[in-house]
């Protein structure tokens, strides 16, 4: 009996799983955003969950109409925003399936998400196939718009090449005498790219430097005793690292007592989110970046204060760090494009009296913009974010360009402060359209093809 | 008549223990040979050496004039020597029919690559059914082998050895674990099948009635040696055999099999 019940239930489950259709399209009353971020795994703590908290806080604030200028309109274009949050864990294969589910079963209007570069690479062509506006908020690989050209895909944060270029500039400004260079980076695509960019940049900017060791521990290794010994033994002037999250913290905890930083300058290209977490563990004078003018590097503005207040309320008093800024940039980017499209539509509607069907014309003009209209408005758009102005200039108008900044740490009254901040314009640290990052670095940072 | 199986000077020792000592046996085609001896006397060791499970420390075994001493059980089986086991070795999750079908399948798939004899099974499933009839196992055809009574398991174990069409069959205690009144029924059936397919048989047996009734020749083992070899009546009446083998520990009829 039980067996039969189970069997029926199972068959039923299989049939429903395959045949239940998504709800019929209705009059648009809200905007549904599929939001994909790490909720589990090593990236969830430092990036994934802060991003989710920021997204939720920002959406609540926008829905309540509490956004500062120029984002006072409720929700997006007056429609309340609804978030559908999905875990990014599980690899690109699963993410593509989940993306299809989001678009086809959940019928979301926009997908914002993806921290992992592999996930972004995999999702981009699927977004194109499903014709769904998709905004990558955090992943860094330059390959997305260097290898492909997309209509439906946008990335509202600059790609990772500038991390290495600006870091090198800052380093050479402060320590022009560096000769012996070493690195410790995780053995996966981002860690390898980050090191390769840095190595190429410093070799291009200061010929004659010597790479004394490049350590590539496994992602998530946790134990860095041997690597630290090898670093010390190679006696470097500089240690470059793109470590992040638990790996960075473990490295700092293990390295700091071993006097390694007394002799060697540490450069943490993605170090900003950990400063408040590692008081006393980060040596003074460490060069840190935040993958853009985020966090401590963000210039003061109403938008920045709004984000800080919103995030603090949501996270129980923490300051937002760069994933939160990235999320804000993505959501505000969509909002800006959407509202720009809506305004354009109303602006170009036939003046009253001139049209035959005034009511219909008006309805059409005030209807939410279509996806195509939003995309047209998004391309090459310039909008304000808590990190400053964002220019969608690269990737045929789909890839954001921003300046970046680096600074040095100082331990003061129990907190790590960042001083001697230097800002780098986008032009100086980003390859021009159509040139791949490594080619650009090797060409000596030429501005034109 | 030339010997079909010829073992010369077989010795086998496990460290300090000698399991076989200067064994010399020549078996003629179509004969039925009984192997007797108390536990640990070397009977099973002998079977294990002939079928390739153990390699003799020294000595040689020839089958049909060919040296098989260093061959694997599989190669020896393919040449035409097959065996049954003290503890039946069945495919426990399969039905009786499937157990035999595996063997038929192996022979059919091997085709002519095997022994000089060219056995092919035109219709595997029917061939198995014929075999089941021969061993009176038809009633158990679709029963799971793992759930059969012990006597039936013994019978199936022997049938599985027969299904690959051996020319020599070695049976390791075919009647152990079989009740007294079933012993002769079982042996009658086996011997009928053996006769029909012209198979030479060597079997280990503790029940002297069985030995006397079915064998042409008896080998008596004691401490790894063969102490008597000849006609059943002669061997069973031999003084040494009576003292060391029959007078010694011999499993009473119907006792459970022992390792």
């Amino acid at each position: 009996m039980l067996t039969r019940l189970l069997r029926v239930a199972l068959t039923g489950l299989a049939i429903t799983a395959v045949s239940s259709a998504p709800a019929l399209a209705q009059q648009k009353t809200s905007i549904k955003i599929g939001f994909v971020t790490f909720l589990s795994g090593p990236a969830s703590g430092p990036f994934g969950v802060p991003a989710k908290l920021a997204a939720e806080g920002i959406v609540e604030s926008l829905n309540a109409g509490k956004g500062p200028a120029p984002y006072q309109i409720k929700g997006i274009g007056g429609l309340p925003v609804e978030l559908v949050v999905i875990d990014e864990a599980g690899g690109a294969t699963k993410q593509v399936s989940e993306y299809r589910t989001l678009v086809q079963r959940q019928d979301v209007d926009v997908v914002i998400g993806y921290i992992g570069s592999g996930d972004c690479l995999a999702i981009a062509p699927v977004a194109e196939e499903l014709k769904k506006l998709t905004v990558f908020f955090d992943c860094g690989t330059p390959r997305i718009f260097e290898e492909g050209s997309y209509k439906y895909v946008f990335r509202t944060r600059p790609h990772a090449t500038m991390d290495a270029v600006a870091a090198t500039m800052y380093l050479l400004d402060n320590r022009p005498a560096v000769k012996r260079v070493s690195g410790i980076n995780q053995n996966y695509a981002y860690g390898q790219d980050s090191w390769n960019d840095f190595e190429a940049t410093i070799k291009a900017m200061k010929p004659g430097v010597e790479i004394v060791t490049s350590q590539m521990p496994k992602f998530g290794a946790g134990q860095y005793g041997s690597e630290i010994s090898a670093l010390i033994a190679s006696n470097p002037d500089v240690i470059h690292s793109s470590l992040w999250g638990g790996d960075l913290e473990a490295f700092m905890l293990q390295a700091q007592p071993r006097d390694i930083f007394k002799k060697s300058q540490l450069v943490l290209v993605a170090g900003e989110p950990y400063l408040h977490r590692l008081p006393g563990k980060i040596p003074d004078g460490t060069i840190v970046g935040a993958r853009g003018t985020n966090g401590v590097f963000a210039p003061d503005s109403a938008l920045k204060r709004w984000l800080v207040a919103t995030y603090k309320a949501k996270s129980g008093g923490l300051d937002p760090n760069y994933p939160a800024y990235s999320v804000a940039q993505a959501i505000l980017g969509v909002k800006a494009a959407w509202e720009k499209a809506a305004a354009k539509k109303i602006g170009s509607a036939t003046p009253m009296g001139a049209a035959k069907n005034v009511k219909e014309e008006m309805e059409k003009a005030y209807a939410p913009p279509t996806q195509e209209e939003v995309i047209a408005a998004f391309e090459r758009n310039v909008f304000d974010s808590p990190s400053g102005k964002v220019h969608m200039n690269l990737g045929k108008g789909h890839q954001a360009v921003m300046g970046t900044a680096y600074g040095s740490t100082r331990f003061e009254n129990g907190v790590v402060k960042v001083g001697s901040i230097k800002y780098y314009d986008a032009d100086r640290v980003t390859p021009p359209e159509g040139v791949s990052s490594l080619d650009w670095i090797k060409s000596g940072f030429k501005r034109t093809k | 008549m030339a010997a079909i199986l010829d073992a010369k000077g077989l010795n086998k020792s496990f460290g300090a223990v000698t399991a076989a000592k200067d064994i010399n046996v020549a078996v003629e085609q179509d004969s039925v040979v009984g192997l007797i001896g108390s536990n640990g006397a070397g009977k099973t060791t002998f079977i294990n050496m002939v079928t390739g499970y153990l390699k003799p420390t020294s000595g040689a075994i020839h089958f049909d004039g060919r040296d098989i001493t260093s061959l694997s059980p599989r190669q020896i089986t393919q040449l035409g020597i097959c065996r049954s086991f003290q503890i039946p070795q069945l495919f426990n999750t399969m039905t009786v029919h499937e157990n035999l079908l595996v063997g038929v399948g192996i022979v059919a798939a091997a085709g002519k690559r095997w022994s000089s004899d060219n056995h092919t099974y035109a219709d595997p499933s029917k061939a198995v059914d014929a075999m089941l009839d021969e061993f009176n196992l038809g009633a158990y055809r679709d029963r799971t082998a793992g759930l059969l009574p012990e006597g039936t398991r013994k019978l199936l174990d022997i049938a599985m050895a027969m299904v690959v069409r051996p020319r020599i069959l070695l049976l390791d205690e075919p009647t152990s674990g079989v009740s007294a009144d079933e012993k002769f029924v079982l042996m009658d059936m086996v011997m009928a099948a053996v006769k029909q397919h012209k198979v030479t048989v060597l079997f280990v047996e503790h029940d002297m009635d069985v030995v006397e009734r079915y064998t042409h020749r008896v080998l008596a083992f004691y401490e790894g040696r063969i102490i008597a070899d000849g006609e059943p009546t002669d061997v069973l009446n031999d003084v040494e055999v009576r003292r060391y083998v029959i007078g010694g520990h011999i499993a009473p009829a119907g006792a459970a099999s022992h390792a």
Partner: protein
Amino acid sequence: MRIDRNSIAVVLVGVVLLALGPVLPSWAVSLLNVALCYGTVVLGMMLLMRTGIVSFGHGLYYCLGAYAAGLLDHFGKMPDMLLMVGAGAVTAGLVAAVLGLLLAKYRDIFFAMLSLAFSMILYGLLVKTASLGSTDGFNVAAKTVGGIVIAEDSVRIVVYSLAVVFATLSAFLLHQYLASHQGRLAGAIKDNELRVEYMGASVKAAVHRNYVISAVLAGIGGALMAVNIGHIDPEMTYWPQSGEFVFVAILSGTGSVFAPLGGALVFEAIRSFAYEYSPNTWQMVLGITMLLVMIFLPGGLWSLFTRKRGA
């Protein structure tokens, strides 16, 4: 060739799935598509399990199949779906033929562990290969089928239909194989290797053969998945992926070639809905499902459909 009830049923299921393609909502087609690719790999796991061995490294062949397909597109500039699947099958089969020489001697946990080590070595190699995108992998797209260019708006349905064809063809052939003399040895080996040798068959050869077949199936599944997903990365040979294949095989049961395909569908459906409705605890949902199946249905989900016969 034996034409029995199950062979006909496999063909019928294939035909029904093909017919459903244009009718079902597109997300359901994607779900089925993933399940079919997965199911093809699990068919191979089923064959291994029937032989009494379990590989904790079958991601190796899944990944090799996918990379073989991907490289045809990436470097070979031959994005033909049939060629890609063929390349996946051949690559996986060849590597398995070599590694199988070693592995065929191993059993139980040792077989599982050595195969795990091999798969992790491939993982390490791919992560180190920057030209293939390291952990980020690269994108793959099939543009033709047997030389015929696929129209852009019919890519999904073509990819799905080919997955149906390859999965059901694999199931059909595997069913034929299992019913053959060679195939029947699988169960015999699982039950009693000694007896198989004493019946004159080589256990090692049979294990090796089944290992290669299962690798070919994994290679086909990997190539199909590469085309379906459009992206491949080394995660495909990382140990949790291999663990998942074992997981789905146990969930499915090994009673019939339908089990892996059905099990893969159930698994994908559970996973997909768990991601959606329980984003913070989807692993727990999978873990509990698995425990419940192992406790109450030790024969896998398939035993629901066969229990009556045994009673």
